[in-house]
């Protein structure tokens, strides 16, 4: 299947970042069409009908989420765009903001109009230096053209967009942690309920959407819900930007309708290196169970991957060929979750640390025959008892690696002549 570029249609065109170029290429037509001709509740209905699901990983229906915002126009409401892209293997939002910032701004205007927000915040990962510059410039240009500010197109809808830089924390991508960060606190998650749509930023109703989700809204308004629904498959309408990285010939972003077989995405990305064989991949960023060769024909959609006990997540495919050392991969990933655990809850803070210590012991040839079982138990505890999704995502990549490639772990453990003796205290590991 060839690529189907909708969000990425104008990638790489040098003029696309400027407002004239964006408009020349068909931009800012959706807001002209919608404001004020389409009533906000009808815009929500349109997005509901399109079947658009959130592209930040969870796949929650976007129109339904918007519908949760209270209708009372007197109540302050906020839109927050989550551009804190930090999931390992994920690099679609960076591409979207660096190559087509106005597409996102237009999507944010539409979403704010639909939910009745007067303020919208664009929480951008602090390390996205180029993206922040381009987004800030785009906001200024849109303001000058009257697409932002007071009484847009003579309507009573007014909107300010604030580009807000983060400061480096994976957990800030979790929506309630993002709100704390945006309020000027440590990015620790909040208890849900209340959900942000009821009590979010400053305790007010807040809708939080991913960059790619908001970009999709522009095209739904331009072409209609029916057009969007025809792309992809049932319950999985639209295209998705698949990001392929790791052991693959042409790593990059590729846009396809949802439901494309995994094998085809890998083929378009150039396939394996010469002489190498596909071994495994994480299909949706690192926070999901890995897939193996027998899964290559799976359809890349939310339901199919959930049924396989993995996840579509951010559709970030991290590919490993037969040269990959799964013990190292598992250890590196758990180190990531340990580094990024906010420390708020014990299962995550302690669990990630203990699993890293055990995996480091195994990798150093000091593992014991009990280690695999302990890893599974600790991961099980993390997955089911932690406060937020971080540790829920930390367990499957490691547990699935242990399960699918058990023999590799056992081979490491057999290197220890004393593997059947009670373990010594975990050795320290070279990562601070």
């Amino acid at each position, binding site marked *: 299947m060839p690529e189907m570029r909708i969000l990425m249609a104008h990638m790489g065109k040098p003029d696309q970042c400027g407002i004239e170029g964006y408009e020349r290429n068909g931009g800012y037509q959706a807001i002209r069409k919608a404001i004020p001709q389409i009533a906000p509740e009808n815009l929500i209905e349109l997005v509901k009908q399109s079947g658009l699901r959130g592209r930040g990983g969870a796949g929650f229906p976007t129109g339904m989420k918007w519908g949760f915002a209270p209708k009372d126009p007197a109540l*302050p409401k906020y839109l927050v765009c989550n551009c804190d*892209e*930090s*999931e*390992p*293997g*994920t*690099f679609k*939002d*960076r591409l979207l903001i660096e190559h087509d910032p106005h597409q996102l701004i237009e999507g944010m205007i539409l979403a704010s109009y639909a939910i009745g927000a007067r*303020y919208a915040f664009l929480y*951008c*990962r*602090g*390390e*996205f*230096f*180029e993206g*922040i*510059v381009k987004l*800030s*410039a785009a906001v*200024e240009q849109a303001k000058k053209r009257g697409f932002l500010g007071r009484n847009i197109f003579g309507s009573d809808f007014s909107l300010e967009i*604030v*580009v*807000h*830089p*983060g*400061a*480096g*924390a*994976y957990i800030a991508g979790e929506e309630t942690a993002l709100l704390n*960060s*945006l*309020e*000027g*606190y*440590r*990015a620790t998650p909040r208890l849900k309920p209340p959900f942000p749509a009821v009590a979010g930023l*400053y305790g007010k109703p807040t809708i939080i959407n991913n960059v790619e989700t908001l970009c999709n809204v522009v095209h739904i308004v331009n072409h209609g819900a029916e057009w969007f629904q025809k792309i992809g498959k049932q319950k999985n309408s639209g295209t998705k930007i698949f*990001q392929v*990285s*790791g*052991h693959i010939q042409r*790593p*990059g972003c590729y846009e396809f309708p949802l439901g494309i077989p995994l094998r085809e995405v890998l083929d378009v990305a150039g396939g394996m290196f010469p002489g190498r064989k596909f071994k495994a991949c994480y299909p949706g960023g*690192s926070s999901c169970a890995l897939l193996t060769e027998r899964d290559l024909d799976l359809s890349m959609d939310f339901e199919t991957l959930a049924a396989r006990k993995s996840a579509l997540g951010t559709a970030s495919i*991290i590919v*490993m060929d037969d040269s*990959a050392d799964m013990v*190292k*991969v598992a250890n*590196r*990933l758990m180190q*990531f979750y340990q580094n*990024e655990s*906010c420390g708020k809850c014990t299962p995550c803070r302690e669990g990630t640390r203990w699993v890293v210590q055990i995996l480091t012991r195994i990798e150093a040839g000091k593992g014991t025959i009990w280690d695999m079982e302990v890893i599974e138990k600790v991961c099980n505890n993390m997955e089911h008892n932690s406060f937020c999704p971080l540790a829920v995502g930390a367990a499957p990549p490691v547990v699935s690696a242990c399960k699918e490639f058990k023999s590799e772990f056992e081979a490491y453990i057999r290197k220890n002549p004393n593997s059947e003796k009670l373990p010594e205290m975990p050795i320290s590991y*070279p*990562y*601070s």
Partner: protein
Amino acid sequence: MLSEKTKTAILELQKIYPEKRSALIPALHLAQAERGYLPRETQDEVAELFGIAPNEVNAVVTFYDMFFEEPVGKHIVHVCKNVSCMLRGADELLEKLCVKLRVAPGGGSTEDGEFTVIPSECLAACDKAPMMLVDDKVVGPVREDDLDRIVDQARKGTGHPSPVKKAEADHA
């Protein structure tokens, strides 16, 4: 002491938000852009501008990876160590870079204060793996032979940037 210019800029930032504390992280970026890092006295000054306890600011500074409580090099090289980069040789690259710059294995600062090497988690540029963030520039895929050129080029730059200051400069 923070300059009047930075203090004024911080007070301006506070006005952008419905609640001024939201400006704390951008404000710390600005303060760090002036001082190079965030010593306790600078944190206290920022706390005063926000009317909050110094520990509230310290809690934020210590949480986020982009804030430094100790001096760092003029240039910062983040070397991504996450899986996509690891699979393409990030560990070896980090090792080579540390040897080249004569910093401790696994990262650290050069004696002349020019460079700090920081092993980093995923920087969202896995298409360029193995990649590095050199000050504000994403570079990759990096081969060992590229390191000389990358280091030389960084040396010519103005140093590690702040997302806030840079955005302002580009507007002006």
